[in-house]
Every structure is written in C-alpha cells, then in structure tokens.
C-alpha cells in the first residue's frame, strides 16, 4: 500500500507540480489550501506525511503544526516556507517539526527528502 501524503499549501501551481511529482513517485497525494481546514483533513485522511507551508490563509502553518503535535499518532511533517530566516526555523524546531525546507527548492531535493522521511 502506497504512503499517503497531504500537501497543505495555498499556491495551486505548487500543489499541481508537487502532486505530479509525488504521484509519479508512487505516493498517494491529497491537498488542502486552507489552513483552517488542514487539521480536519489530517484527521480524516491520517496521512503518513504532511507537507506544510508556513504562510497559509486563515491559519498559519505553525498553528497547524502545534495541533499536529497534540495528535496521538502524529504524521511526519515537512515544513515549507518562503522565509528562510533563522527565526522561522527556530520556531518550527521548538514546536517539533520533522524536517524543514526553504523555498524555492529543486524537485529532486524535495522528492529525496520525502522518500527519506517515509522509509
């Protein structure tokens, strides 16, 4: 059974390209654009990995991450941000993010990271 990845990202074109890549790599891919809906989708889908953007409409990626940390069986999280600042990284690490990646990234880079996190 293929691993399930949920992409929580508000940029539709990034969702489109990431979904294409991950689908070709054999993963099951779902997506959510709204930060406020992210936890509901995570509870429903119970994904193995969440690719989570920091700046989301309605609710920040950090807020979503805090809620993920409180789940009994939390999925792994790959945090994406356009802000490569140390402050963001520190905040994410304090909350307990699994991995952290700064935009813009290469396709091979994110694919390798996802595969590494799910093996």
């Amino acid at each position, binding site marked *: 059974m293929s691993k399930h990845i949920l992409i929580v990202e508000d*940029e539709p*074109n*990034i969702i*489109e*390209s*990431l979904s*294409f*890549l991950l689908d*070709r790599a054999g993963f099951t891919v779902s997506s959510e654009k709204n930060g406020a809906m992210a936890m509901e989708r995570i509870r429903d889908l119970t994904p193995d990995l969440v690719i989570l953007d920091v*700046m989301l409409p309605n609710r920040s990626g950090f807020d979503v991450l805090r809620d993920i940390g409180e789940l009994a069986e939390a999925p792994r999280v790959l945090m994406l941000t*356009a*802000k490569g*600042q140390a402050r963001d990284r520190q905040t994410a690490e304090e909350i307990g993010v699994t991995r952290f990646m700064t*935009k*813009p*990234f*290469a*396709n091979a880079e994110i694919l390798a990271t996802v595969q590494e996190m799910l093996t």
Partner: protein
Amino acid sequence: MPHSLTGTRIRQHRSRAGLSQTALARQAGISTSYLNLIEHNKRGIAGKILLSIARELGVPASSLTEEADSELTTSLLEAASTETAPSAETSVLAEFAGRFPGWAQLLASVYRQNRDQEAVIAALSDRLVHDPFLAESLHLMLSNITAIRSTAEILTSVEDIAAEQRTRFNAAIHDESKRLSDATQALIRYFDKEATQGAPNEAPDEVAESDVASMPLERFASTALASDFNPSALASEFRTNLHAVFRRLASLKNEGVDAPEMGLIITNAAGQTLHRHALPDFPLPRHGNACPLWPVFQGFSQPERPLQDLIELPGGTQFVTLTVALPRSEIAFGDSPNYQSAMLFLPSDQSPWSPVPQPARRVGISCRICPRENCAARSEETVL
C-alpha cells in the same frame, strides 16, 4: 579604570610654558619629587595644590582635571572594548590620550561615528526583517519562483506528460511569471515611494521662472497641442533649446493642461541628477545610481544628436524616450564643453510621437532593485 589624565596635562602645559619641574614645584609650593609623581599620574591631585599649579601655568583648573575629557576617555574605552580591538592597551589609555590628544580625539570621533552608523544600519535591517509589506512580497515572489522552477523542471525532465497536463503546466508558468512581474513592480514602487512622493524638483527656481518667461503657459500649451508635442518645433517656435522645451513639457500636466504626463531627467556627465520629474511607473533614483542603460546616459556618447528610443522596464511597461545632450553654456575655444543630457519620457501607449522602428531596449531602474539577470551593466548586487 584608566589613571587620571591630570598629571599628563600638567606636564604638557608645563612644557609649553617652558618651565622646569623644579621651577613649577617651587612656585606651587610642593617638592619636585611630588610633582614628578603627579605628572606621571601616580599621585592624585586636587584642592589647593591643583589651583596653585593651574594658576602658575596660567590655565583654568578645570582644564587639568579628568572631567574635561571624560567623554573622550569613555569613547576610547568603548572603542577598546569592541571585538575588533581585543589587544588595545587600555592600561595606558590615559597616557595615550594625554600625550596624543589630537589622535585620541580622532580615534574617539571615528569610533562614535562608526557606532552611530552601525545603529542606523541595525535599525534599517530590523525594518527590512519586520516590514510586513516586504515580508509578504518576498513570500509571494519566492512562491512564484518555486512554482515556476518546479513546473519548468518537470516540463524539461519528464517526457511522457499527457497533453492536457502539459497545457496546464504551461499555463501555470505563464500565470506565475505574470504574478512575479506584478510583485516585482509593486516592490520597486514600494522602495521608491519615499524618493518620489513629494520629492522636490532639484532644478533651481530661477530656471523654472526663465522657462515660464520664455514659454508662457497659454501660448506654449496651444502650440504644443497643435504640434503634437513636437519638441523640435517648439524649440524653433520659442527660440530656445531642447532642454528648456523638455522642462516645459514635463511641467504641463501639473499646470492643468490636457496633455500626457511626461517624465524628465537631466544629468551631468558624472551621473548627478540635476532635474527630475518621475512618473508613477517610472521612478527616478535621486542620488545618481540610475540604470546605466538609460538613453539619458547614452546621450553623452552622441552629444547634440536627438535620440528617440523605446525602452522596457522590468515590469514590462514600455516607454518612449527623447534624449539629447547639450553643452551647458556656449562652447569657447580652448575649453572642453560641459554637457548635460536630458531624457523626456512617457508610456509608449500614450506617446504622441511616431513609433520607434526598433525593438524595446530592456533596462532597469537601479541595479539594487533590478531583477534582470546576466546584465553586463550591473554594478552592484540586487536586493531582490
């Protein structure tokens, strides 16, 4: 803590006065050996003895005490405590300041200047980090770039993409490129806002007055409209030069005339801006760091030749420009002409002049805020 500088100052004043230690000690009513200890800052001095020595040296007592230079001492101590001066000999700071007061003042002054500038840089840096508009813009631009990069990589590295999917990817690149251009333009406008809003016209008032006198508004406006804003025809009609006509044309809109708004920049050969009238979509840097590809600078290579160009800014907006470099004053034998170059410009879709029969030349605003890559004219890195 440094020793008191009082003894060092007494020694300096005594030397300048041409007095021996023995003579001063006698006049002040103390022993020579005690004065020697004082002068080497090994004994403190105050009260009657200080007043007595000051009187004999002919200087105010306050000029001998360490309070006189407390700011200097503090600054030198601060300078010595910075990471860049780990081996400064603070134990002889008083001696240094006393023996070389000029150098000490210079060092303290340079240190204070550096410290103040660091504070300004820190404040600006802080603003860049915390400014919500900049943060949002950079986030948006990086997201656009991420989408374009990821999609372009797929299109160039994956062969078996369904036609429908390929079309969607192509549309995504087009869409994101447009958004990136818009975000870039917004950012450039933001950076230049302070420079353009309410920016004073740097031309002296008397020049504007002379333009008004030689080209009265009503007659100039009607002639301009009748000639389709032809600068050469206007210069001929009003018996003046093209720079004066450019200045008058650039001021027409502000004077309530129903004319297209025209921007204007006049520079000297050193790149210094002498006159500026920016347009909302064409901001003009104020301190001579404009894009060197602008026709206004090309004008210096072809003095007195009127040039018409079509240029394109990074956001994609195109402008028609009229440029001419003219001597600032009459050319005299034996003197090198002092040229100034003027560029009149307006959006190409509002141009009253005949179309330029050549492709648009891609230029920027200023290297620091220019996103163009591989530009041979770039002189500094972009913050974008």
